[in-house]
């Protein structure tokens, strides 16, 4: 009986970790292969192997020293950061109104905001293009900041509104009695309480803007204004017929690392952000 029992336990344990292993391999393998490839050079690139056989940083030097890749990287950092700051600012103020100020059509407005986020990018691409041309910001970073903010806002507003609605009304009322204006309430009372939600939504907005491709391809036309996803896609080899896999992979790794670092830094905050408000504590 005892032996049976421990055998069953062992089987369960084995199956469980086997499943974990499968999931990890499936999700990590593409990235692992990209890293592996980025360290290869020459014809090694086209030999399939799953363990590192050679190591060279040539691809990284190539990517960083040729063309406008560093510039593109800077563009990406600038556009994503500005998008996050702008989106968070607008979302905090909007969600304060949506969660705290009573006005006609509030529910309808919230549903509309959610509805907007369901449109595929393709559907609004033409209209957005016209708008950007009209505003005269075509082929500038602002075109991307503008369009990314539009697409990030619904989610950000929605999450922050839900979060803010859960903050006790009495705290706000205490602040009102203390003489706080709405701006003071938002910045000095609500924002410190909302860090987890701000970090979570801000990070997701950053990742969204960082990886976006379609708008970046459409609204920029010169090498100097492109962001990294487009730059990577347009990396060309020495001839028209050569695809520089090594460079592409090195660039991809360079692009992914900042995001991974950000997530690791804010990991704790994200977890508490995703669960905060679920339980009263």
């Amino acid at each position, binding site marked *: 009986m005892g032996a049976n029992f421990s055998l069953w336990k062992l089987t369960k344990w084995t199956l469980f970790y086997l499943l974990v292993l499968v999931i990890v391999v499936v999700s990590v393998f593409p990235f692992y292969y990209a890293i592996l490839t980025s360290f290869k050079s020459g014809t090694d690139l086209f030999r399939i192997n799953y363990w590192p056989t050679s190591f060279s940083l040539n691809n990284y030097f190539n990517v960083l020293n040729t063309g406008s890749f560093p510039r593109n990287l800077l563009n990406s950092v600038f556009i994503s950061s500005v998008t996050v700051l702008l989106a968070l600012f607008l979302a905090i103020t909007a969600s304060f109104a949506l969660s705290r100020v009573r006005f006609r059509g509030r529910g309808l407005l919230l549903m509309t905001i959610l509805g907007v986020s369901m449109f595929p990018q393709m559907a609004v691409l033409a209209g957005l293009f016209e708008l950007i041309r009209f505003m005269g910001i075509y082929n500038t970073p602002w075109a991307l900041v503008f369009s990314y903010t539009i697409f990030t806002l619904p989610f950000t507003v929605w999450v922050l509104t839900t979060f803010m609605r859960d903050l006790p009304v009495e705290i706000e*009322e*205490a602040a009102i009695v203390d*003489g*706080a204006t709405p701006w003071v309430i938002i910045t000095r009372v609500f924002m410190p*309480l909302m860090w987890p939600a701000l970090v979570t939504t801000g990070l997701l907005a950053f990742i969204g803007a960082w990886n976006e491709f379609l708008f970046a391809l459409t609204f920029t036309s010169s090498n100097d204004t492109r962001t990294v996803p487009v730059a990577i896609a347009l990396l060309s080899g020495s001839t028209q017929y050569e695809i520089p896999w090594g460079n592409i992979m090195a660039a991809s790794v360079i692009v992914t690392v900042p995001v991974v670092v950000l997530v690791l830094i804010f990991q704790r905050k994200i977890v508490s952000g995703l669960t905060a408000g679920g339980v009263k504590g």
Partner: protein
Amino acid sequence: MASIELRNIRKSFGVVEVIKGVDLTIRKGEFMVFVGPSGCGKSTLLRLISGLEDITSGEMLFDGQRVNALAPSKRGIAMVFQSYALYPHMTVYENMAFGLTLEKGHDKDEIRRRVEKAADMLQIRQYLDRLPKQLSGGQRQRVAIGRAITRDPKVFLFDEPLSNLDAALRVATRIEIAKLHEGMPETTMIYVTHDQVEAMTLADRICVLRDGMIEQVGTPMELYETPDSLFVAGFIGSPKMNFIGGERAAAHGASTIGIRGEHIAIVPEGGEWSGTVIHTENLGADSYVYLDMGTEEPVVVRLDGANSYKSGDVVHVTPMADRIHRFDASGKPMR
């Protein structure tokens, strides 16, 4: 420091009218308690005075000045909330100083002096550097009271400040609030509670509210001894006043008579009424005997000291004639 006058105050939420025309004058330095069952509008009335809710119609005057449209912070009020409502991310010191830092014209030294003075009054000085989550419920409520004191308000508002505390702490904090009132004789205090014991022990005057209207205003003893309606008679006092109708009331020429438990004497024989003991409660200092006399609710007799009556005993009782409250069919007293 401020007298408050309410003139025909009304408040509606959508189509529901919650406050239905309240006229009330609260004197300078008075401790006024709003009491009533849940949903009677007592908290709403407090929030109207605080300015957190807008008045639908009527006039509110502070020291003769109309304040209907004045923001809460401009009215010179401070409020203590039921849920403490401390700022969770600020230390006790920052919580108490927040209001002063927002007002212009207070330098740091003055703020520190005022916070420390309030903290000394409430004996929370050693907690000034802690966060609210590191404090117990009673300590948090003190901080909330301290935050209000620091602002040196003309009117102090309490919205059921004790209902989140346990029984022992509630009594202790109640005494502390009474002392606070003694220490600030200039400050008008308005206190909302559903607990009539708090009302009786704290108030200079009590305002009993029912369905958005004032039922009676008076000192605790006035309400206890000369209630203006069946409702007030039943609401003030513990245990509840006994109400007896039917023939027994008719014998006194009333539709309903009310008699408090301590005004009924158990007599060996030939009392005015008789009943069967259904339950007894011994509290040591006094004790309650519940009698079934065929009335809707059992009649409670309060005796000094312990008693030895048992369920099933038949006892004779006599009400003290001059302590009988007579009410007509509309619930109004007949005097």
